[in-house]
Structures are given as C-alpha cells and as structure tokens.
C-alpha cells in the first residue's frame, strides 16, 4: 500500500532523511519511534507531500509521488493526517470542520455531509459537541474531532504525527482509545509516537528511526524486549 524507496530529504544543507526504505501493507499499523530530530515527522510528512522529497520514490496505492503528473490533491484524499497541534479550523464549528472537505472535494451535498459528520463524531464519542467551536473543547476532544475530520474523507490510510504529544496526560487515553478502535477496524496506520504502550499493544510493527535512517524495525515485542541495535537499546533505556 505504501512503498518507500531510498527516500532522502534535505533542508538546505541539512540532511534529515538519508535513504529510507520501507513497505507498509494494507491494514498494518506501523509505529515510528525515535529521538527528536531523528526525522520521524519529516518521514511522515513526505508520505502525503507536505514535504517534497529531495530524491527517492514513494508509491501510495499505485501513485508515484515523484511523478509531476500525479495529482497530489487526489492522493491526499486517500491519506488522512492527524497533527500534533490538531489544526482544527477555529472559525468553523465542530461539525463544519468535519463537513468541509467532503463538501468541497467529494462534492457531497450539505445534508449528506452533515449526516456523515455526525456519525463520525458519534464514533469518536463527541457528538454532543457538534455545534461547539474548537476553542471550547479540551485538547483530547479537539484531537478526536481532528480524527473524525480526517475519516470523513474515507481515506484508505491514516498518518498520525505525534497525536498525543500536545495533550495533558489525563487526556492522552481517550485519543489512544479512538486510534485503537480504528486499528481494530483494519485501518492502515502510520503513527509517529512517544507512547510506547500504544506501540507495543496496537502496533503490528515498530520502526526505530535515528539520524535520518531506519535503525531497526520489527515486531514490537522483539524491539522492546530484545533490541538488536545499540542505539535502539540506548534510546529505550532512556525512555522506558
């Protein structure tokens, strides 16, 4: 579903990604862990072209991202993204946040879009806030709305960029719960996270990134219990 070949990304002279290779299969939940500055977020942002790769190739569901003829807007409708800072639209109510893209991009009429939005808000457990504005919601609620907003496009896969890092500790659980539910429903997910418990419990595979490369990857149990690389060991020792 996602194929990444020799992906490199430079910001000026700074080489952030130094040749990433990875394949992500349908319905797989891949957690990306690693120290800050290791290129995790940049890697994730390259997958929906919020960052343009310097060299290499990414193939999403058959679309080659390096090909200038690829319609990036069409690819993005299939790849949902959830941000660390939620990035809800503050001038629109919760339900309008969720309705906007289906209306504009999928051309749903208002009634259909609203019906779909309310069903998704129900799913993430926040339907009673449908007519509130984002600023009236807690961080955890905002992030759940952001997940619903992404799901409203019925994407084939979802990218999560440290979805719980900006949350108060007591609000992390409710967001992880929604993500867990999604994983069980068979959503293909790539999750950049510091939540090792989530990676271990929900992840089918863990990628450990350091210095712009995938230093180690494998089954969560194996990575957390018996990491092969010294750098993985050192990292896990620091955080666990």
């Amino acid at each position, binding site marked *: 579903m996602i194929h990444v070949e020799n992906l490199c990304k430079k910001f000026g002279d700074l080489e952030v990604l130094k040749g990433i290779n990875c394949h992500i299969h349908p319905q797989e939940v891949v957690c990306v862990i690693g120290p800050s500055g290791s290129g995790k977020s940049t890697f994730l942002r390259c997958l*929906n072209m*919020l960052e343009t790769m310097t060299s290499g190739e990414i193939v999403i569901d058959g679309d080659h991202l390096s090909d200038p003829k690829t319609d990036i*807007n*069409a690819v*993005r*409708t299939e*790849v*949902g*993204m959830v*941000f660390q*800072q939620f*990035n*809800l*639209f*503050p*001038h629109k109510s919760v339900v309008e946040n969720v309705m*906007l*893209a289906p209306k*504009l*991009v999928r051309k749903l009429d208002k009634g259909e879009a609203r019906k779909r939005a309310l069903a998704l808000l129900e799913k993430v457990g926040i339907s009673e806030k449908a007519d509130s504005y984002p600023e009236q919601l807690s961080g955890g609620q905002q992030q759940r709305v*952001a997940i619903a*907003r*992404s799901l409203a*496009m019925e994407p084939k896969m979802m990218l999560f960029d440290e979805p719980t890092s900006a949350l108060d500790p007591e609000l992390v659980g409710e967001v992880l719960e929604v993500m867990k539910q999604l994983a069980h429903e068979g959503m293909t997910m790539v999750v950049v996270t510091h939540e090792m418990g989530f990676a271990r419990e929900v992840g089918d595979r863990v990628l450990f990134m350091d210095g712009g490369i995938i230093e180690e990857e494998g089954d969560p149990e194996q990575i957390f219990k018996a990491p092969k690389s010294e750098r993985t060991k050192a990292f896990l020792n620091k955080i666990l």
Partner: protein
Amino acid sequence: MIGRFDWTGVIEFLPEILKGLYYTLLISIVGLVIGFALGAVFGLGRVSKNKFAYAISTVYIEIIRGTPVLVQAIWIFYALPLIIHYTLDSVVAGIIVIAVNSGAYIAEIVRGAVDSIAKGQMEAGRSLGLNQRQTMQHIIWPQALKRMIPPLGNQFIISIKDTSLLSVILVPELIFQGRLIAANHFNAVEIYTTVAIFYLAITLTLSLILRFVERRLNVQ
C-alpha cells in the same frame, strides 16, 4: 472676542459645504472599495509563490508607499494626461489616487493577516485534499479577514483624511469648498471649524461602525 464670530452665517453656506461633504464621501467610499480590491489582489500577490506576482506586487507597494499622496495626486491629474493624451475629470482622478494609494497599504495589511494565520491551517486543509485555492478561500481568508479589521479601520480613516489633499487637483470636496467660501466672505474661523467638524463626524461614524463589526466578529 467670541462675539465677533458669526456662527449663524454658516447656515447660509451649508449647501456648498454639503456639496463638499458629498464629494468627500463619494471619493472615500468608491476609492476605498476599489482600494480594498487592489489590496486583496496585491496582498495575495505578496504571499504568492509565483515570482512574477510577488515582484509586481512589491514594486507597486514600494512605489506608492515611497511617494507622498500629494505628489501622486498632482502626478495623476497634471502629468498622466500628458502621457495618455486624455484629460481626467478631477473627481475621477481623485478616486484613482485614493484607490491606488490605499490599495498599497491595504495589500500590506492583507499580507500581514494572511501570514499571521498558522501554517498548520494551510497544511490541515491541503492534507484533506483541498487545493490551494479552496484552502485559501474557505480556511485562510475568513480567518485573515477578522484580523484585518482593526488595521483596515486605521487605513480607512487615514484615506478619508487624505481626500482633503485632493483640493489641489480641484476636487470640490470639503476643504476645497471651505476655502472657496472663506476666501470670499472672510469667515475663516466659522467655515474651517465647520469643515473640521464634518471630517471628525465622518471618521467617528466609521470608528463606531468598525467597533460594531469587530464585536460582531468577536475579534480578540
């Protein structure tokens, strides 16, 4: 001393002063509507990735901000007709001056407001599959517009006051009419005070309207 001023005489000249008020309002309103359109276009040019649009906008803004309104007015009314071989009506020239001048400042207001909307908003829109134009129209612009209101109010007031400079290109606006009356009837204190009060009335009314709009849009 006070007794020497004849305030009742002002009533006699009121029709002429009101004519001036009419032109001041006409030029302000039409000029600022066009100025806002110019500002939106060139402001978006300033935030555009298109190098041509950016360059054109920057040149326009720098030329207008770098020259006095008075010089712009004189140039458009007395110099431009010699280049285009077409004599401009002074009111038309006045509207052009206010539109082109305010447009440059409004462009910078637009640029600042659009720039101030967090990058994450654009990314959130684009990641949902909205194109650049849709994201601008539905996500960035409505938020930017709210932030523009206080500086726009400021610019509107400045431009309204700038219309008084158009008296040098013979626009029969408030101060032009006032000078005409005062020169013939030696009642400078009464007439010029009345003219000043009219300007103040216009700008205070605008301030009130803007305060109302701000409250409606809940600008923080």
